[in-house]
């Protein structure tokens, strides 16, 4: 599809047009000294100079806390009603290509056996407008997992910044095409502009995803003492999982009084001690290294064996946020050279 052009100064008009129709415009903005993906109502709120926002934008497709049913309990009857998802159109402006690639990962898992309506209705109404990265930090590793700072995977529209701060627009999907046509007065047909080069994210030497997958697949490595050694410092918090754009596990809880309440779906983390605790009292992942092994296995073994999408998109959030700097790329490098 032919390239278009988006002037930075017209983004305000796009926000106005969308929000006046009741749509949500999500963009990077400052909150508590951090850049986060959050709904904005004015262009002035948008931060244009950032590397990767603190949060992945999965919360707009798969909210951290979401009521899925309401119930009342009477003397001899329980009345339960499902909650209908009324998804609003959500435009995610300034998504990074790594985060955009994670949408397919979430889609795979939420449509694998059951079709999760809560997720699907939101994703159907989401338009991902990524901005290719021109800067990276030392936690970024998209190229190591075969993505790139300007990769189009998962974006409906990919924007590439020009020297003037405007954007060369690449329309990637039909959804993106319809969106650009709908706002034809904003997405101009000039395509002769040149974009700035993408960030130079070096592939980490010594990491071989194929070898990692092979080693992980071999069940005799499951009890290798290496796991306990590599994850000994892990404190078992959920920072990495909640910061991860592809982590998708959730828990269902009931909240309310003895007579009425809500059934709620909450993000959960495989790093938590009670994540796998059985009613019997047995816990198959009873120590932290088993929980940490599970997360790594999920990204680089279970996921790639089951789905075509990415288990890890290399955004680096888990490295940045880890209280003890447990660096997933260091583990990838170690396992890459295991026999």
């Amino acid at each position, binding site marked *: 599809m032919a390239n278009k052009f988006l002037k930075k100064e017209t983004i305000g008009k796009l926000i106005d047009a969308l929000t006046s129709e009741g749509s949500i415009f999500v963009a990077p903005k400052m*909150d*508590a*000294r*951090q850049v986060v993906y959050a709904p904005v109502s004015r262009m002035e709120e948008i931060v244009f100079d950032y590397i990767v926002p*603190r949060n992945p934008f999965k919360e707009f497709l798969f909210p*951290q*806390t979401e009521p899925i049913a309401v119930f009342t309990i009477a003397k001899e009857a329980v009345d339960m009603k499902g909650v209908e998802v009324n998804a609003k159109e959500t435009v995610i402006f300034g998504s990074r290509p790594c985060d955009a690639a994670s949408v397919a990962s979430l889609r795979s898992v939420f449509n694998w056996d059951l079709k999760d309506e809560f997720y699907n209705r939101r994703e159907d109404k989401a338009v991902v407008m990524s901005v290719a990265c021109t800067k990276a930090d*030392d936690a970024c590793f998209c190229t190591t997992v075969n993505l790139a700072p300007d990769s189009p995977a998962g974006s409906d529209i990919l924007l590439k910044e020009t020297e003037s701060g405007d954007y060369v627009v690449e329309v990637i999907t039909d959804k993106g095409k319809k969106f650009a046509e709908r706002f034809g007065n904003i997405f101009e047909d000039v395509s002769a502009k040149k974009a700035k080069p993408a960030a130079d994210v070096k592939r980490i030497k010594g990491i071989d995803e194929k070898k990692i997958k092979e080693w992980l697949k071999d069940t005799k490595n499951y009890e290798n003492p290496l796991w*306990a050694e590599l994850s*000994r*410092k892990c*404190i*078992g*918090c*959920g*920072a990495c*999982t*909640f*910061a991860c754009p592809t982590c998708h596990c959730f*828990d269902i*809880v009931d*909240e309310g009084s003895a007579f009425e309440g809500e059934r*709620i779906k*909450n*993000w959960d*983390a495989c790093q*938590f*001690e*009670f994540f796998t605790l059985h009613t019997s009292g047995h816990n198959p992942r009873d*120590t*932290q*290294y088993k929980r940490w092994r599970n997360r790594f296995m999920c990204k680089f073994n279970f996921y790639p064996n089951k789905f075509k999408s990415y288990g890890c998109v290399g955004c680096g959030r888990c490295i940045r*946020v880890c*209280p*003890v*700097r*447990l*660096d997933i790329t*260091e583990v990838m*490098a170690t396992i890459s050279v295991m026999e």
Partner: protein
Amino acid sequence: MNDNMENTLRQKAKELLEKGDVKVVIGYGWNKKKSHTAPVFITKPEDVEKLVFNPLCVNNLSLYLTKKFPDIKALGKPAIVAKGCDIKTIAVLISESQIKREDIVIIGMTCNGVVYRQELWKGELKPEIMPTKCHNCDVRNPHIADIIVGEKVNFTPPAEPTGMVFDKIKELDKKSGAERWNFWLEHFSRCIKCYACRQICPLCYCERCIAEKNMPQWIETSSHPRGNLAWNLKRAMDLSGRCTFCGECERVCPVNIPLNLVNQKLALVVKDAFGHKAGYDEKVHPPMIVFNMEDTEDFIK
């Protein structure tokens, strides 16, 4: 200074491991890129070269002495590399019978301060990148230790606590109850319930946290305003009179909740009410966990 300190540290660690006095040395080491330090567990004398000590050594390693880490306990008797502030937490752990003094070897490091966050480090330790705790530190020379590494540090902390955390507390104290309530509601609204604050805290060592008790569900697990408020208030109350201001909870909070404010406010309240400051004497129990027949209140008698 650091080269010398590191050499001495490695030498001492090597001796301890070679003699079999300890089975593991819990210390700091570089990550691969040498941009950050992280906890390391040295079990072989030949690996002591991995130990480092510098202003990036922010973690409070006393965490790893608690029962939260059965795998580390299983390694055998530990030696721990600890700054004065970390030793304060060790003192509370001893006073609360979580560890026995004789079961650990404390390698106390003299300290000129650390960075608030490792990302702030540009090769020089300037006052503006140091956390409030360092500006008020009265344990730059470790107060409880088996081995002290480093030259004596001459530093007199200000008579009254100063710095950003205490300035903000004063500012908050001036506000009305409603304003303070809104201040905290707003900050807690960002909470994502990752429990990094609890997991990094050496004094959060409950075998089953109340947040995980679900019959009944005392603390709602949802990260809605009610659940977030309940969680954060509960943790703050549990730490009153115990928190030693290591600042780890605030450092690791992925969403920048100013947890030092609430914890240090409570520490000031306990100091005013009971004259107690946590972490100076391992033989003194925190006031909230002791019962005296001489207590003036009679509601419990």
